[in-house]
């Protein structure tokens, strides 16, 4: 069975449609800068645990612990909200690319080094923030979701983390 040849204008339309579809469906890696950090901090400040849970990657890192269960991201953000962690008065101290030895900022362990190698995308950045409710490291990166960077890790600096 022979198909009729596709005419030039039709070919152009198909090509345009394919490009448009590709552009529409293609996720883009977020450039994690101060603005992206501010957006995530604003969600914590607003106590939007549901959206924070959605943005949290799996597995994610809490200090040096790899958290693998989907429900635990929700528990994390709800508990932080309940504990009054509002990140009021936050200022960004430092923004560090997550490559190389940066994993040591979370924990200097083999497990955490492997976590960074396997689960942290090339655009991953570690944001050190200080607020009225303590100091934290936020590990952000990956593909944009609803216009936000993914939250890959959190380190609570004012504590007994390993």
């Amino acid at each position, binding site marked *: 069975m022979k198909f009729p040849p596709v005419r030039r204008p039709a070919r152009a339309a198909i090509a345009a449609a394919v490009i448009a579809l590709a552009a529409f469906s293609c996720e883009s890696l977020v450039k994690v800068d101060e603005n992206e950090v501010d957006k995530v901090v604003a969600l914590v400040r607003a106590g939007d645990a549901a959206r924070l849970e959605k943005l949290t990657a799996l597995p994610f890192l809490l200090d040096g*612990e*790899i958290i*693998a269960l989907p*429900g635990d991201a929700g528990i*994390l953000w709800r508990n932080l909200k309940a504990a009054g962690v509002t990140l009021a008065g936050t200022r960004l101290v430092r923004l560090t690319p997550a490559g190389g030895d940066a994993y040591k900022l979370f924990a200097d*362990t083999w497990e955490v080094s*492997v976590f960074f190698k*396997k689960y942290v995308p090339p655009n991953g950045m570690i944001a050190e923030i200080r607020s009225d409710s303590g100091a934290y490291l936020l590990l952000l990166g990956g593909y944009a979701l609803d216009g936000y960077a993914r939250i890959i890790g959190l380190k609570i600096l004012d504590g*007994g983390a*390993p």
Partner: protein
Amino acid sequence: MRRTAAVLILATVIVSSLAAQSNPLIIYSEGEALVQDAKGGRRSAAIGTFVYVDETLITGRGGRIQLQSRDGVFDMSENTAFKLMQAQTKGKKQNAYVVALGRVSMKMRKVAAGGTPPRLGSTTAAAGVKGTELDVYEGADGSSLILVTEGEVEVESQGKTVTLAANEGVEVTPGRAPGAKYTFSEFIDYSKWNQNKLEEMMKDPVGSLKLVEAELNGYMKKIETMDVEYKEKIEWFKNEFSKLDEIEKTQGKEARYKRYHEISPIGNEASYLAIDIRFQTIMALSLRRFVLGRMYFFIKLKYINNYSDKTYIAFMTEYRSILQTFTTVTQSHVVDQDI
């Protein structure tokens, strides 16, 4: 409508027959349900797809997965992590199904005469089955609960065994022998049971940590003992194997074959030990990830406004010490893929 029903029935029959023959097959899933492969990659737990050794099935809130294999049918509840592994008994490979956290209902097939039954259980209790139906729970503090609805189950922990008949259950605290068995008339709600376990852990985090440490130490002791034996056997085997060419040259092919048959049982024993070491390592790693790691998670959040609290400091000191020992013993057996 009839046509749709017929297609569904046919699909179920095909799916079931596939599962009976080969790798475990996902026959149903809903909600948040995924499979973590041996390299750490995650995929959706799609109906009609296979699951392989060293993979972990994970359900989140509202999630459910039903898995069918030649050994039986497994029904995972929400917030559960369920691992598939390979083990061996007396040189015969067997599947191992381990509840690392959450609840799994199991309907096991009868093992054919001469067949090797699968290994079942949690990271703190092993269940020997004989064509049975049972539920295995593992809680936030590492405690296990095994409830039998049909047939007979032998529950083993710390070298002690309890035999359960239908409508009997037993709880196992990590690092301890099984508790006293009891009769039940209806199933215990996993969420409530787990919530109690979590609250008990929160009340005495250091005590709970010590129990998990005892369980982990059990795994590490086995790993160390088997590792010594494995190294001895594999060294001996390699050494003897290297002499085979010389034997062939000086005494002929017959002598080579004869010697090879003499030494090969030791080579086999070494490979069985390697499987056992791997099994114990993954069990220990599961306990470390899904119980110890989550204990840290909950305690870190509980004390977020008071990290100078004595209980918190004692917990963290003990936790670090456990992790250090764990890393020292297991690091040569764990690979990047396991993380």
